[in-house]
């Protein structure tokens, strides 16, 4: 009942900062560069230190404390730990030590740490980007990046619009869910006890009103869009056109440089 207490993963935090003011396109491209490079490097652990420093610097430029960024990634931590564990227990190689019948190998340990870190960095960096980019900006950026593929039939605008609407309604629906859950709790509902079947049954009084509201909202939105003559991409102008500035070029070059040097270091030098 308190799931709104914590910041959810990737929730936009309005603020003024260098990272907030960047063009969404440079931020999205930066995420793609960094993630690609993290997955390309796989011999040593050194590049991971560089990337970590980079992520800390970016988060300090974003006016959001590193602690907040890390705590809001909590939901995926379990996935990361799981990845680590899988690699740790099931890799062949030189045995370091044994716990009962499980042998821990050097290779397993190294791959586990690397895979875990990769996932962690991916989530961390994507998280900083989402926290500093409003959903509208984000989907505008993605639309613009995808638009070269329109001529091959990719519905870039529709895709971005769907994303905007989905992102826009996630907080609203979370609020509604919270409200309906509380309303049913006030009527004596028991939402967190009993077996799976009992719990699922207890959820029906939450899910039914939620679906009703979702459909209602969807219909209202469709009518409102139609009333304002929405007709897709055709002839559409923007209130805030995306502006690529010097800062964006600088930011993207810096990320590109550091990511690339990480990979080069890893593959050819160390």
């Amino acid at each position: 009942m308190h799931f709104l207490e914590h910041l959810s993963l990737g929730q936009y935090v309005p603020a003024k900062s260098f990272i907030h003011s960047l063009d969404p396109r440079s931020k999205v491209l930066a995420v793609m560069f960094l993630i690609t490079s993290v997955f390309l490097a796989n011999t040593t652990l050194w590049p991971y230190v560089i990337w970590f420093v980079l992520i800390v610097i970016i988060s300090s430029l974003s006016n959001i404390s590193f602690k907040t960024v890390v705590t809001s990634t909590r939901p995926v931590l379990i996935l990361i730990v799981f990845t680590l564990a899988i690699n740790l227990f099931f890799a062949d190689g030189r045995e370091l030590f044994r716990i009962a019948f499980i042998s821990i190998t050097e290779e397993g340990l190294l791959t586990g740490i690397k895979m875990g870190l990769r996932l962690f960095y991916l989530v961390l960096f994507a998280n900083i980007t989402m926290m500093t980019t409003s959903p509208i900006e984000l989907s505008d950026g993605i639309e613009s990046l995808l638009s070269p593929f329109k001529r091959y039939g990719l519905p870039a605008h529709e895709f971005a619009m769907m994303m905007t609407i989905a992102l826009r309604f996630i907080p609203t629906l979370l609020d509604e869910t919270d409200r309906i859950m509380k309303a049913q709790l006030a009527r004596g509902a028991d939402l967190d006890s009993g077996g799976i079947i009992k719990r699922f049954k207890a959820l029906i009084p939450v899910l039914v009103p939620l679906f009703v509201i979702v459909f209602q909202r969807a219909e209202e939105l469709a009518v409102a869009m139609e009333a304002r003559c929405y007709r897709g991409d055709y002839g559409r102008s923007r209130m805030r056109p995306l502006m690529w500035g010097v800062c964006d070029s600088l930011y993207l070059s810096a990320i590109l440089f550091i990511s690339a040097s990480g990979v080069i270091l890893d593959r050819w030098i160390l």
Partner: protein
Amino acid sequence: MSIKVCNVSYVYHRDTPLETVSLRDVSFDVDPGEWIAVVGHTGSGKTTLAQMLNGLLFPTSGEVVVDGLKLYPKAPHLKSLRRKVGLVFQYPEHQLFAETVLDEMMYAPKNFGIPEDEARRNIEKTLELFDLDENVLSKNPFELSGGQRRKVALASIMVVEPDYLVLDEPTAGLDWKGREALFSILEDFRTKGTAIVQITHDIEMVLDHCDKLLVLENGRKKLWGTPAEAIEELAEKPVKGLVLPEVLEFAHSLRNAGLNVPLTWDEKSLLEAIEREVSSCIS
């Protein structure tokens, strides 16, 4: 036997950049059979306060005590307290889910472990109070009219006969007739001994009904007193976003202009006072 709210504060999203303090050091009591109005501008913390009376939110600091029992997360007595303190959310018709009105009305009694035959009797009584027909029981709540849906939603909470009833903006979206009907139902409950905590942003609506007013401004207790005491203060020191009744504003201006009239929100008594003043001036 009462609800005691002592120095309660509440912070949303604590220790994050989105931290919002929604209540600061609020205290008041609700005694049996009393009608309390909680008044304040949007965002003044009314809904947060309502959820605390029912153990849906717990104070960041301070405490809420219902009939001698303190509310805290996972308290063993939480469920029985929720039966004692009924909470009606804003737009309660949004919480309807059952296929028939009967199932809807049975939901709370079942949850609270009330025997079926007793629940049945309560449902009949409640329907009568709400002026709803018996044959509504077999209908689907979604095919009722808006006003009737609101009634069913309210009835489905009242059927467990809570001692305290907390209503968050219960008149939102109702027309004048619906509002009058709702007030007469609430008055009925009060005469039966139910305490009422009504949350609203419209002070004019509750002045005639409530025993005490709690005025909130930005999460702080601005005022706590009887309607007569409250309007005396509010007329002198307006609270942001609270619109006083026009008659009251007029009486206040007259008084400032030197006329000896009472500060009242009732047209008739103001008119009489003015007539008295005017005739004494002439004679």
